[in-house]
């Protein structure tokens, strides 16, 4: 390996902002970084199964453009030369958008990139491939009947989490420093927690979903997974902005956050979520939240009213919107679906409208009550998942002493939050008794991503939030 190749490979163990700084200052070329990332993917993806597509030639061409910009004195962008990958429900020009499905790979290749990919590349980032995921995003496990499961870099026998499982595995496994995911009920936060990385689910309507296949449209969010808070902020900043192709995008000012991570958390009112969020957790889960709270000096407790009912309502809305979205495909090709999603989509397509509308009306009630809570506090802490990454293939879990189905219950603590579109940063916050990563949700009021990211950044500075080392 040449000196530059060695330097580029070493940079991949750091974060995206450090890579961009090295490229911008000509300490390494974007092409060398792209080659190093491609080499890592070639060496490690066999065991992680994080990537379903590798866009090597596209990556080399993009990296050369970045290097040409640097050489000619033009600004190559804040993410210059940063290799990244996208969950395979994002359109990538030239690839069929499979969305984790067998059916999707029969689609014609996408003719343009999703907005999120276009904006990251405009900031200088380099797309190196598309990532494994649970079929059509109806998943918390990272398992996939067509592509096989993506695997947890901390224990290859365990789940990566879903549905953005390849995103979690690729970032935690140091294949790329940055990945795109989507979160409907927890699909960024669950893999971030299981794999021990940072994940940001912004406010609903904040980042454009155009060119990303939807699942349950009134809950779907786009967001980044990374190994540092400043990387989350840099990716978020790059993806901000109006987009007429996403009807859910809200008309709010695109305020960048990379220079706003130094807010002193002592100026914020921080509380720990009780009730629903303090029950039914495996050993170590609540202790991780308490450790984060102690580091912040947060002693206050708040209770989100009717959180369990919020989760039930999210379940109903998700299955109905998902089933309806897939109606034509279910009519034509039901048996080509992953058995783990097929019967849920079929059931969702058949449910009464009255159930759906009751859940949507309850959602408005719940939203109003939770927004009132944010008059009293700025940030709320809660566990991300009720347990660390389970073994691949597990079907049940223990919840409050009862054996319950695993798949739906992984979202116990994430669903009541995405239900009303709150921004959440999932931080790696310690390890379980068996040594697996645990995640903690840092939750803010709608449009207050700055507060959630600032608290996460403070925890990172104090060493409370950090990506755990991989096993040797």
């Amino acid at each position, binding site marked *: 390996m040449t000196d530059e190749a060695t330097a580029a490979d070493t940079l991949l163990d750091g974060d995206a902002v450090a890579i961009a700084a090295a490229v911008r200052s000509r300490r390494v070329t974007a092409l060398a970084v792209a080659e190093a990332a491609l080499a890592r993917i070639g060496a490690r993806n066999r065991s992680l199964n994080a990537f379903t597509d590798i866009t090597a030639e596209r990556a080399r061409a993009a990296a050369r453009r970045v290097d040409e910009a640097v050489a000619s004195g033009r600004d190559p962008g804040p993410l210059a030369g940063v290799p990244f990958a996208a969950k395979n429900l994002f359109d990538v020009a030239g690839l069929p958008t499979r969305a984790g499905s067998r059916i999707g790979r029969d689609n014609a290749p996408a003719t343009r990139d999703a907005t999120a990919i276009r904006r990251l590349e405009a900031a200088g980032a380099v797309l190196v491939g598309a990532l494994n995921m649970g079929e059509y995003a109806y998943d918390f496990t990272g398992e996939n009947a067509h592509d096989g499961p993506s695997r947890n870099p901390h224990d290859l026998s365990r789940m990566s989490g879903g549905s953005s499982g390849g995103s979690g595995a690729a970032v935690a496994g140091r294949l790329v420093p940055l990945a795109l995911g989507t979160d409907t009920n927890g699909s960024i936060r669950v893999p971030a927690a299981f794999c021990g990385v940072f994940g940001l689910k912004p406010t*609903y*309507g904040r980042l454009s979903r155009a060119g990303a296949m939807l699942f349950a449209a*009134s809950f779907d969010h786009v967001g980044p997974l990374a190994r540092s808070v400043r990387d989350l902020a840099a990716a978020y900043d790059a993806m901000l902005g109006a987009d007429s192709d996403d*009807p*859910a995008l*809200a008309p709010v000012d695109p305020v960048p956050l990379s220079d706003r991570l130094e807010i002193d958390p002592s100026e914020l009112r921080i509380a720990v979520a009780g009730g629903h969020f303090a029950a039914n957790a495996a050993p170590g889960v609540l202790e991780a939240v308490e450790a984060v709270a102690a580091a912040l000096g947060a002693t206050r407790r708040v209770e989100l009213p*009717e959180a*369990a*009912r919020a989760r*039930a*309502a999210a*379940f*109903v809305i998700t*299955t109905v919107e998902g089933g309806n979205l897939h*109606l034509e495909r*279910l*009519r034509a090709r*039901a*048996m080509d679906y992953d*058995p783990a999603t*097929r*019967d*849920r989509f*079929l*059931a*969702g*397509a*058949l*449910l*009464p409208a009255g*159930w759906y*509308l*009751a*859940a*949507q*009306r*309850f*959602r*408005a*009630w719940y*939203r109003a009550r939770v927004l009132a809570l944010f008059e009293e506090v700025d940030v709320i802490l809660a566990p991300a998942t009720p347990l660390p990454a389970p073994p691949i293939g597990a079907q049940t879990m223990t919840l409050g002493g009862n054996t319950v189905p695993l798949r*739906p219950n992984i979202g116990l603590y994430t669903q009541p939050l995405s239900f*009303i579109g709150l921004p959440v940063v999932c931080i790696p916050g310690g390890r379980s008794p068996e040594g697996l990563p645990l995640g903690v949700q840092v939750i803010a009021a709608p449009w207050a991503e700055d507060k959630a990211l600032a608290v996460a950044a403070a925890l990172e500075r104090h060493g409370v939030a950090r990506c755990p080392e991989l096993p040797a």
Partner: protein
Amino acid sequence: MTETTPKPLTEAEAEALMEAASRALSLPIPEPCRAGTIANIVAASQAAAFVMSFPLADTDEAAPVFRA
């Protein structure tokens, strides 16, 4: 839950709903999917019953985002 709020469906009731809605939506349910679909309708009915047992006012409008 009051007497008037929906109860979770039994398997037989879920099967009847599946048959009727399948016809209404022209969505055939393949034989290997029937048991799983019924089980998921039962699960959804449990969630829906829990949601619908909560009293809402006429002023509690549905939440979806819509902009003309």
